């Protein structure tokens, strides 16, 4: 009986023909598997009506936050005005000390030269899907890393979408929502920082400090750019200060 393999490959032994079939199989299997996408498109985690309900609830909280923040800024300004009027009664040194402290904890506006950074999702990304592992979205960790780089470069004051950043500012995400100071912010994200622009830009250009971000910029077209800005205005912190457990008493 003539082997089918010998019929087609008369010069080869049966053993070698079997090897050839196995190798062909390996290539076929590898080719088919490599064509499979590692990140198959994921349909939305939430149905459309749930997304709508979520948006409405979030909007209610965010609108209220804006009002409360505005009230806080007004109250702090009114207190400062009254303190100035009482300067004759207050010791001038106390007010000077207070002003200095306020400047160091984010309660005064900072102006000057620095950098302006723009971060945005890839143009084709859909944040509403709630897919946090989508590499074409900006993550809270990206913003944290940039803020860390700016701090390491001695930035004097930092803001993200007009939210002043303090040492106690959490930059977190829940799903695809990003919260700074527990306030909801949406892309595009504008990060501003006052300081020496040359040093700030040099650090931002360091790909080893922002490896993941630069990789995703290249592969997934995330928007990440920065430039010097000589007319920056870093706003006053407009949130609360939590001092329920922290005390100066031993």
């Amino acid at each position, binding site marked *: 009986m003539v082997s*089918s393999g010998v019929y087609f490959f008369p010069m080869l032994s049966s053993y070698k023909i*079997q090897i050839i079939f*196995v190798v*062909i*199989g*390996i*290539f*076929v*299997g*590898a*080719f*088919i*598997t*490599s064509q499979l996408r590692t990140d198959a498109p994921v349909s939305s985690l939430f149905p459309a009506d749930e997304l709508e309900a*979520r948006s409405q609830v*979030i909007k209610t*909280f965010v609108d209220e*936050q804006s009002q*409360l*923040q505005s009230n*806080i800024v007004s*109250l702090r300004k009114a*207190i400062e005005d*009254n*303190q100035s009027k009482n300067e004759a*009664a*207050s010791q001038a040194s*106390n007010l000077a000390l*207070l002003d200095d402290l*306020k400047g*160091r904890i984010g*309660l005064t506006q900072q102006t000057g030269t620095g950098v302006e950074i723009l971060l945005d999702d890839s143009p084709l990304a859909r944040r509403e899907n*709630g897919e*946090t592992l989508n590499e074409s979205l900006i*993550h*809270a*960790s990206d913003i*944290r890393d940039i803020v*860390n*780089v700016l*701090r*390491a*470069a*001695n930035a004097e004051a930092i803001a993200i979408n007009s939210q002043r950043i303090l*040492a*106690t500012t959490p930059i*977190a995400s*829940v*799903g695809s*929502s990003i919260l700074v100071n*527990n306030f*909801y912010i949406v892309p595009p994200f504008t990060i501003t920082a006052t300081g020496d622009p040359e040093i700030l830009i040099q650090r931002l250009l360091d790909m080893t400090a922002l*490896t993941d971000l630069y990789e995703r910029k290249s592969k997934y077209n995330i928007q990440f750019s920065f430039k010097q800005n000589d007319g920056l205005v870093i706003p006053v912190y407009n*949130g609360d*200060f939590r001092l329920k*457990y*922290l*005390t*100066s008493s*031993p």
Partner: protein
Amino acid sequence: MKLRDITLRKSALMLLGAILGALLIVQSRSFKNVTDIISRDPSANIFREIQILKQTNDNLRDEIKDLSETLDQTKNRSTALQAIEKEINRDKILAGDIDVYGPGVYVKIEKNVRALWLIDFINELLNAGAESVSINNIRLTDTTDGFDTLPLGQIVVNGSILNSPFVIEAIGEPNTLKNALLQPKGIADRFQENNPQIPLSIDTLERIHMKEVL
């Protein structure tokens, strides 16, 4: 019959080869850079999102109440001085000008890690309400530099090289802070998953002392 057996054998060999090829591709994908499998932020949870927003608004309302009381004090000359003193004391605490105390938690990472883990642990503590945080006794304030990584991998903060073990302390509600770190699929889980060989310990402390920033 014999021809059919031979054909079946050849088909089986090809199928075996195809499976081997598929496994090779799958295995090669699993060897991707470790940073690709780190998810540094939690997955979607609408209830958690709303809880955070609600708590934030409650905190803002408390702040407004405190500020309103302070404003009333500033209108009266006799209480205005007290209000200024109170604000100065509070701001000195926030600025790191005086020693502070309070209950909280500590996180101890026994071996060298990448700076991003320290950043993420600290962020998680702040997110859970930590009022002050330190690392290896370096208190983190608004004038503290960020984490820098030197070419040989050492982590630097405020000009000081941090040596392992890394000890992060945070003042705040102890159980809230601890539970935030230890929640399922939280930062502690993610850390252990990506650094199984590095011991991690987290526990509450009745009293933490953080010194003033010099």
